[in-house]
């Protein structure tokens, strides 16, 4: 495949891995403890496991899997809200497929569908709008989920619905924004991060400037990274290079996609439709100020929360579930008490096991063979 295979070249990957090894040897800090580099985005987590990137690298550097997986940080209460909406007889509830199996306090959307709720998987919010046009007597609710990557398409759909006067379409908005959450992570006392791989697809929309505070205020190096194996390796090299040279800057490895100023049309659409919430609840991380968006008053009639009212209850995670600690990088997925036993991709307890971008699902699918080695290392340490 053109423009894909080039970024998966095994020989180049090996060469990059060697460069990284050489570079690490010049960093004294890496001899005391492994350097911890957080990949913020779940897309990176998936790539790292799918392509075995951690195994290519020496023990003196390790990936810490960040919270950048929208499905994974969705609190149980919001899933319950989805189900409450979906169970209204007049509602056709539309969602991306990966949210279907996320467990709520009593059931998932998939189980609600089996019990009779009209839940339909769509590939785009525009599909939901189309459904609304085709079913004028039903209320079509779209479950808007994701970071700045998916926000523009949701915003454009609301604008389209407004322009066309589609009255039976609304949005259950759970869009979240990554910047405040990175801030919260950097303020957290139990983390010792040495650098970041920045989220490339979020960067495509918002550009590189919003990440400046990471380098400027917190003094941590960050490289906005692409998602193919060579992208991830090269970005890792760039972050380590900054560490080796004592720099802390925002660098952009993913220049073929990410412009410095982001995408103006996308940002305009987001700004037109959405405004920041005072706070938003993240699974495992708790409430984070200004970390979510809601529909502006101007478009209130497209806001499912205002139109139908949702229970909006705060539901605690199951006691056995350690998603929060995994999300903060305090423990690795396989160190969770229920990993691979009570919690598997088939019967997930926690949302990290649901999405392909979740660290636990990635460990389970691609990493099980190596967890023994990791366990041994953890025990020895």
């Amino acid at each position, binding site marked *: 495949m053109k423009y894909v295979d080039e970024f998966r070249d095994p020989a180049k990957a090996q060469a990059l891995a060697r460069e990284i090894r050489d570079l690490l040897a010049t960093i004294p800090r890496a001899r005391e403890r492994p350097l911890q580099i957080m990949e913020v985005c779940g897309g990176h987590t998936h790539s790292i496991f799918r392509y075995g990137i951690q*195994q290519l690298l020496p023990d003196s550097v390790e990936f810490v899997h960040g919270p950048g997986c929208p499905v994974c940080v969705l609190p149980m209460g919001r899933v319950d809200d989805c189900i409450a909406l979906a169970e209204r007889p007049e509602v056709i509830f539309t969602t991306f497929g990966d949210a279907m199996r996320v467990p709520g306090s009593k059931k998932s959307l998939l189980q609600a569908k089996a019990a009779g709720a009209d839940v339909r998987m769509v590939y785009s919010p525009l599909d939901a709008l189309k459904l609304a046009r085709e079913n004028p007597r039903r209320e079509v609710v779209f479950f808007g989920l994701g970071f700045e990557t998916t926000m523009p398409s949701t915003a454009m759909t609301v604008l389209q619905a407004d322009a066309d006067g589609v009255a039976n379409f609304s949005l259950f908005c759970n869009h979240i924004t990554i910047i405040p959450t990175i801030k919260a992570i950097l303020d957290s006392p139990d983390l010792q991060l040495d650098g970041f791989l920045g989220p490339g697809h979020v960067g495509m929309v918002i550009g590189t400037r919003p990440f400046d505070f990471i380098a400027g205020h917190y003094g941590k190096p960050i490289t906005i990274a692409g998602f193919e194996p060579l992208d991830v390796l090269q970005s890792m090299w760039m972050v380590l290079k900054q560490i080796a040279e004592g720099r802390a800057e925002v660098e952009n490895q993913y220049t073929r996609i990410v412009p410095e100023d982001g995408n103006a049309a996308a940002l305009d659409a987001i700004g037109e439709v959405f405004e920041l919430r005072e706070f938003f609840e993240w699974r495992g991380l708790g409430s984070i100020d200004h970390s979510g968006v809601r529909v502006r008053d101007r478009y209130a009639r497209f806001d499912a929360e205002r139109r139908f009212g949702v229970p909006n209850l705060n539901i605690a995670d199951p006691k056995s579930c350690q998603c929060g600690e995994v999300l903060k990088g305090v423990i690795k997925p396989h160190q969770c008490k229920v990993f691979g036993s009570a919690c598997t991709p088939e019967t997930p307890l926690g949302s990290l096991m649901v999405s392909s971008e979740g660290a636990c699902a990635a460990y389970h699918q691609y990493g*099980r063979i190596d967890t023994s080695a990791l366990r041994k290392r953890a025990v020895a340490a």
Partner: protein
Amino acid sequence: MNARAHPASLTPRRRATVRDEHVTLAHGGGGKAMRNLIEDVFVGAFDNPLLGPLEDQAVLPLAALAALGDRLAFTTDSYVVSPLFFNGGDIGTLAVAGTVNDLAVSGARPLFLSCAVVIEEGFPVEALRRVVASMKSVAAEARVQIVTGDTKVVERGAADKLFINTAGIGVVPTGVSISAANARPGDVVIVNGTLGDHGTAILIARGQLALESDIASDCRPLADLVAAMLATCPAIHCLRDATRGGVATVLNEFAASSQVAIRIDETAVPLREDVKGACEILGLDPLYLANEGKLVAIVPPTPRRASSPRCAPTRPVATPPSSVPSPRRRTVPSSCAPGSAASASSTCWSASSCRASAERATPCTSSASPATSSRSAASTPTARRCAG
């Protein structure tokens, strides 16, 4: 199909015809309308002496079966697919090829099928004829007879357009022993062509993805291919058609049953470029996509040079090929995937590019760890097309 008994003629005395454009509840009611539908649409197409009498059952002569082997293989499968018609086939193609293949991968010669249909009221008779014509043509290609059947019509909404169940009987030749538990360390894994074509064709036929492609389903019967493979290499260890769940699921089952780990050379996995592209866009793993004309075989590694360039085991673990009745043994049917299937069946296990190998399972060894070129244990193998 319980209509009046008939002398063993192939067609009823006066040809019954269906004039309705749509199937109605009357066509399942047991009266004349139903008889017309059965005789016109089904019996007329399937046309064979065992079905002709329209008894409540087909009666199969045992002696003819016993001449082919010493065990019966018996399987059943229900077919529900949306959409019913897709690039490369339809539900009828699937219903025959799928059951034929389930029999064939035991090494059996598939012989007889049943056909039970559940039709939603209002289904176009013309569409039903198209489906039945596909069944007829695949049955002819696989040289199986559809010898008994059943028709039900349900109210609108009680079923989605058309469901088909087929059961099948085949005979396993004496000495053939294929099982998921037979894989051994050092064995080679082969497939007979590109993977994921069917799954991708169905996704695209549903029309929700706004992707355009001419990817066609690989749906086809594999019985002749299996017969040719067994003739070439009677010691096939494991064999399965990689339908729902794809090649990865089959290999996981082999690995678990045989207690081996399977290492896959990613670069040797045969994939169409457009299937690869669709999988990239949709985040799918082609190893988990459904196939309907692809089998996965685990075979012993190439024996030391034998007289024939083909796999001619020096120590046959099963009955020698001469006693295995496999019609048309020497020719691989042209219907098997152009090039790939034929070459896989005849030469793949002596080809050096077939590198996937089974290793003894030692849980949590790092050798089977995921790296750039090999996926994790028991996720996937295969060989690229081993032409020549």
